[in-house]
């Protein structure tokens, strides 16, 4: 079972996942909750990009698990638009990063890249772990917070 299949099964179990034709190209996905039921909407524009599907699903699931009870709507934007994230988005991204990447494996690979004097560590790590650069950054922040980096 691939990581995408695993997260898809997980999301499907806890939320209602739908594909949708968002007219805005910067919306990759959206999470919203009504009376306790979580909904994840994925943009059809990312349907042939497995890495983006996986990361968007993980981030939206992050909202599902990190938001308090109540009714919410949280859009997930494409990487280029994810600057100046708010607290909720950061929490969701961190949840996604921890779900998708193991702490020790990340540190091990990061150290190996540092030895090779890799110039673009974030892009390299994103490629190795098959995630978006935002997830890599969130993982780094999470490890820093935990005093592991």
């Amino acid at each position, binding site marked *: 079972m691939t990581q995408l299949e695993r997260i898809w099964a997980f999301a499907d179990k806890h939320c209602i996942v739908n594909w949708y034709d968002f*007219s805005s190209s910067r*919306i990759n996905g959206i999470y919203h909750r009504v009376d306790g039921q979580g909904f994840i909407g994925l943009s059809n524009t990312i349907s042939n990009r497995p890495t983006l599907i996986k990361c968007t699903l993980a981030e939206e699931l992050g909202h599902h698990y990190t938001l308090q009870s109540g009714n919410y709507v949280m859009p997930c934007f494409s990487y280029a638009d994810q600057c100046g994230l708010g607290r909720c988005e950061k929490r969701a991204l961190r949840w996604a990063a921890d779900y998708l990447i193991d702490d020790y494996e990340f540190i091990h690979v990061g150290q190996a890249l540092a030895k090779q004097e890799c110039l673009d560590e974030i892009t390299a790590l994103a490629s190795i772990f098959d995630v978006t650069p935002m997830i890599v950054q969130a993982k780094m922040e999470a490890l820093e917070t935990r005093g592991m980096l």
Partner: protein
Amino acid sequence: MFLTATHSAILIVGIGGSLMFPERLKSLRNQKGVTQDEVANALGVSRATVAGYESGKKREPDYETLRKIADYFSVSTDYLLGRTDDPTPPSDEHLTPEEYDRRVVAALSRSDGYGEPLTKEEIDDILKYIRWTREKHRMEKEKKRDS
């Protein structure tokens, strides 16, 4: 960016003469680590207005602004008004579809949380999607019940 906080019109009565509101507002702003300018931008008012709310001397927010403040800080309006010490917003279970949609628009119209605020078209798009899922979910539930 999220939807929380409900309140009824009667709560606004509690604002008049309450010393709690200015203190609570200032304290929430400090906790969130935002400036008066940032709050003013999120609420769509001037910085002086926010300063006025915090000083408690002149200004009091109207109904709509009070609701925006509660949404912005994710607290209940009762907490803002000093009627409770529990900041947790009400659970908002069983909102009417219209009320939910209204809150979607209000929450998405705020610019906090993302670099660029959503455009009107994007908000309409999201609203359309939410209505679509609501209808689909309702039909699926009915189908299950019938079978």
